[in-house]
């Protein structure tokens, strides 16, 4: 990544999010650039999902703002944030269960402005890319969990997004499935010319996948830097990685969120 070129950037600027008395995010700053993979980690309840919800317009931040390529998008409704090039997946998978897998992905492309025919072939390409072509006609409500996760990622990419936010895509997958997922995720930023933010508790996956990491604890940024820097950071070890190691964090049950 050379510094000279102008890359598209998503910037979170001192965002604070309060739910009544609870402060879920406190003055968080974060930047995501096209072409990079940024890992967002932290204990359960540290505000990771809330941050994604603020970026995608499901929540309006109490303070601060979110900026995409110089345009403020915080305060916009979610569908307009999506049209600004921000796509996401959800911590609890959200497919259109009565539509087929192809229709799920095709619809995303249509919503991004493609014609029906072009959307269909784009959906076919994406299904090929993610190895789910054989599921095209299947009702998406009938898939195995791991397949649902993949379909949801393919659907988000079909919007032609500049920024892709993945909320715990490896949660609930077995080791083999996680490994396969890692292979499929690696090339996304280059191939689709987008920036990718990924939340997960699987430290092995995160460390191997991400160029940079950002660590939240109780709504505050406690560290950010390369995988190596984070692994050795005493504050992060204390708050998240802990003495028992990351394996436990990966195994910890994740609270099911509202959105």
């Amino acid at each position: 990544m050379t510094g000279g070129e102008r890359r598209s950037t998503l910037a979170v600027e001192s965002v604070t999010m309060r739910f009544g008395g609870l402060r879920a995010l406190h003055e968080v700053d974060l930047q995501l650039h096209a072409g990079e993979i940024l890992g967002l980690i932290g204990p359960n309840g540290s505000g990771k999902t809330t941050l994604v919800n603020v970026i995608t317009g499901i929540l309006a931040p109490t303070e601060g703002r979110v900026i995409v390529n110089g345009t403020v998008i915080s305060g916009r409704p979610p569908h307009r944030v999506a049209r600004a090039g921000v796509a996401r997946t959800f911590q609890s998978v959200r497919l259109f269960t009565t539509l087929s897998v192809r229709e799920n992905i095709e619809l995303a492309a249509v919503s991004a402005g493609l014609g029906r025919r072009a959307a269909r072939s784009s959906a076919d390409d994406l299904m090929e890319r993610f190895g789910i072509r054989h599921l095209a006609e299947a009702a998406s409500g009938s898939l195995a969990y791991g397949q649902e996760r993949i379909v949801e990622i393919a659907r988000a990419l079909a919007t032609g997004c500049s920024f892709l936010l993945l909320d715990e895509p490896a949660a609930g997958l077995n080791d083999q499935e996680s490994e396969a997922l890692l292979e499929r995720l690696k090339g996304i930023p280059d191939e689709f010319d987008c920036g990718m933010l990924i939340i997960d508790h699987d430290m092995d996956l995160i460390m191997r996948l991400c160029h940079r990491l950002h660590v939240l604890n109780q709504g505050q940024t406690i560290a950010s830097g390369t995988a190596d820097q984070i692994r050795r950071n005493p504050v992060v070890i204390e708050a998240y990685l802990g003495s028992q190691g990351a394996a436990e964090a990966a195994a910890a049950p994740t609270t099911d969120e509202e959105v």
Partner: protein
Amino acid sequence: MNHLHGIVRSNRSMLLFLGLFALIAVATQLSGVPLMQRIVTVMMINLILVLGLQVFMGNSGFLSFVHIGFMGIGAYTSALLAMPVRAKSAALPTLYPFLADIQLPFLPAVLLAALVAALVAAIFGYPLMRLSESAAAIASFAMLVIIHVVLSQWSAVTNGPRTLFGVLRYTDLMTAAMWALVIIAVAYLFKRSTLGLKLRASRDNIHAAYSLGINVVVVRWIAFVISAAICGLAGALWAHFITSFAPGAFYLAQTFVVLTMLIVGGPRTVSGAVVGVLAVTAVHEGLRHVENTLNTSGSLPFQVVGLTEVLLAAALIVMLAVRPGGLIQSGEAGSPKARTVPPQQSAHVAAEEAS
């Protein structure tokens, strides 16, 4: 030839029901039995109403009680536009001059009726589309009440709660059947259209729909307006079949019949809506016949009144308890089934992908 084959294949369900209803219409016409012709004509009009409702309810997942109000708006609009000037001045002496002095032919009157119903839906429906499912259902009921009150109190235009006489009879069995066939096709095409797909997606998962850039409120609103136009059209056809009616015709009793048809049949599918109309009409007419026979035979020491309604209501409750999705819940009748992935195969595929 291949091309034609493809069209037939992907529209099997639609073609099936188009054929069936064309057949019913022709057979009834040839039978020459006036009672049958009457029943089937009303059934065709009910079919249009139910399909109008299905376009909105089935695809959006929202419940609506207001659509019979749009039927009423369509009925009065078309009646007023197509009535002969002299009959109008007799029935409605205080009617506004710009309405009193015109008489349109059948087709423009019917189309304008649909348009007026659509306009009312567009203006007053928008706020409803922003509400949650349950709030929108209640609000739609409130809207039905408002339309009913306006129709029964706007004496200059509707003759108040009294019956309006003198509407010309234009609708016959074949007219009703032809429109029913058109609307069957419209309902199938809408469901498959981009708009229909977006609406069904928002029904399945609203947050996911938003996250793809779909403006759910607007999509819902457009569907609401289209479905109101269809119900307005049905009202116009009905007005020119019955020829005299009062605002009470567009209220709870009719709402109940139409909702029962849709819910029993299965609101999510067009074929469900169609089958619901057939089933409820058959049961309804059958029960009415039984009721009449019982009452005239004198075999019971009392008169049975309302048996038909009570049994239909009971059938609706049983249906909701036993098969809440209706007779045809997901796949359209007659079309190739969507594949479901058996769990073993999924596990196998996952393992294959990992290796």
